[in-house]
């Protein structure tokens, strides 16, 4: 059965159409990568999936139920920047979801429940390779570490849909490959449905089980803003489901020293050198 259905989504800001007639059906567990020129509405589409913005027309449903009109715990998000809380340490950031859930008024847990929340946070910290940075604040982390923290924090709520808005756009190539490997691993493990907006075509082809291209199909040279964009290409991909080295990679603590002895990375590097 189709997991997520978007029907005739249209968005305009005032008189300016951004998206028009976007139709989409996505199976559960897909990793959908989204590319397109700047300003083509791909981030807008993601924000609509998130509930941060509302479509001017059309409906989006998950398992037949229209999505909530505001962000909720069913849909996780990682932005390019500012996705973690600067006033909390790595551990504090990872304990926050449990504290939100367990204490409606104070937003803080004590005693046994606090220990349980800390253990869950520590398990995630281990998984995203930040256990050595436990008491550091986000400003003391590198860009890659901040994004790892952001992804780990989002996954603590076990969302069925994870939305990524150019999550690795600000990272250097080596760190980016690390992060991609970590994402694939977490995606395989959780079975969640991922939507990922990216500027990097190679990344989109490499990671996705499906690639969407947003573009304008009609163009008025006299008035470029006359028409909105829609999905112009919808390409099924092999994805990373059956990758031969599934689970073989290990995320090392420091991105700078990971390239040696990492089968995933060496493969990605050798691909790049091919014509």
């Amino acid at each position, binding site marked *: 059965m189709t997991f997520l259905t978007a029907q005739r989504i249209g968005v305009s800001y005032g008189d300016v159409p951004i998206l028009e007639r976007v139709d989409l059906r996505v199976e559960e567990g897909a990793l959908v990568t989204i590319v397109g020129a700047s300003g083509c509405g791909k981030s807008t589409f993601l924000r609509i999936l998130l509930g941060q913005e509302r479509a001017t027309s059309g409906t989006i449903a998950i398992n037949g139920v229209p999505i909530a009109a505001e*962000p909720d715990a069913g849909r996780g998000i990682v932005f390019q920047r500012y996705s973690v809380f600067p006033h909390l340490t790595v551990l504090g950031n990872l304990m926050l979801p449990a504290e939100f859930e367990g204490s409606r008024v104070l937003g803080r847990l004590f005693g046994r429940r606090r220990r349980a929340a800390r253990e869950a946070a520590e398990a995630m910290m281990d998984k995203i390779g930040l256990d050595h940075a436990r008491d550091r604040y986000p400003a003391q982390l590198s860009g890659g570490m901040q994004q790892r923290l952001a992804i780990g924090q989002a996954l603590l709520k076990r969302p069925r849909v994870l939305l990524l808005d150019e999550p690795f756009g600000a990272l250097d190539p080596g760190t980016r490959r690390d992060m991609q490997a970590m994402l694939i691993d977490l995606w395989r493990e959780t079975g969640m449905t991922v939507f990922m907006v990216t500027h990097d075509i190679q990344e989109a082809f490499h990671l996705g089980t499906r690639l969407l291209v947003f573009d304008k199909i009609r163009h008025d040279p006299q008035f470029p803003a006359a028409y909105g964009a829609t999905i112009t290409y919808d390409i099924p991909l092999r994805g990373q489901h059956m990758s031969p080295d599934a689970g073989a990679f290990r995320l090392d603590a420091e991105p700078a020293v990971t390239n040696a002895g990492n089968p995933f990375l060496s493969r990605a590097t050798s691909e790049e050198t091919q014509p």
Partner: protein
Amino acid sequence: MRLINRYPSRAMRAALGALPFAGLLGAYAVASAIRLAENPRDKLLPSLSAMGQAMYQMGFVPDRRTGDLLLWSDTFASLERLAIGIAIAASLAIVFGAIIGILPIGRALFSPFVAAFSLIPPITILPILFIVLGLGEAAKIGLVAIGTAPLMIRSLAQGVLDIPREEIVKAETLGASTWQIATRVVFPQLWPKLITAIRLGLVPAWIFLISAEAIAATEGLGYRIFLVRRYLAMDVILPYVVWITLLAYLIDRLLAGMSRRLFAWAHLSGEAL
């Protein structure tokens, strides 16, 4: 090496920083000596020792009429008014700044009002305060509070709005309610901004405090300055001005240090004054 790339050493920096102060002091001493040589009874530029003498009288010799040590009772009275006024303004700033910053409905409700209110020249309210609240402490504290609150409210509201939208959305996806977002995401990030707002608010606060004391008071630093003005007592006025400046400077440094100590995370990136 280019001038823009030359950095003074630590000792050099301290010496350079002290230079303008020493220059001013030296210029005053010379000017004072010239005037006193012409007329030993000149009151306009009293000598440094005369000022020291006067301050010793104010600080360590009980007043003949009240028995108080005037410098300290003045200082205490003024700081008390300042602290209460600022505390009221800060409380208003937290409540209304948060409501305006966090809730779109709150912003629609209060933002235009605060913007309009902040444009009232506070001194024009002083007569109203004296009429309504009488000539006691309430009116002077009220002026400090009213004079600084709108500025601090707007500063804090802007502080909330400056929190990246991404953080708020992220908190929503982590299952937080509006209340939880306010208490766990917004307020913790607001405290260092409150300290900054207080530091900004103290500048006008001192102006309003001294003005109110000048008009109706029986003690206080502003009261004293305007009282002894009648006798051209520059030997008291000048040290009082220096003393007020020193107090303001120390309070500012204290708040800055407090922010760095209590909210270390807020001072990790970027450089602040």
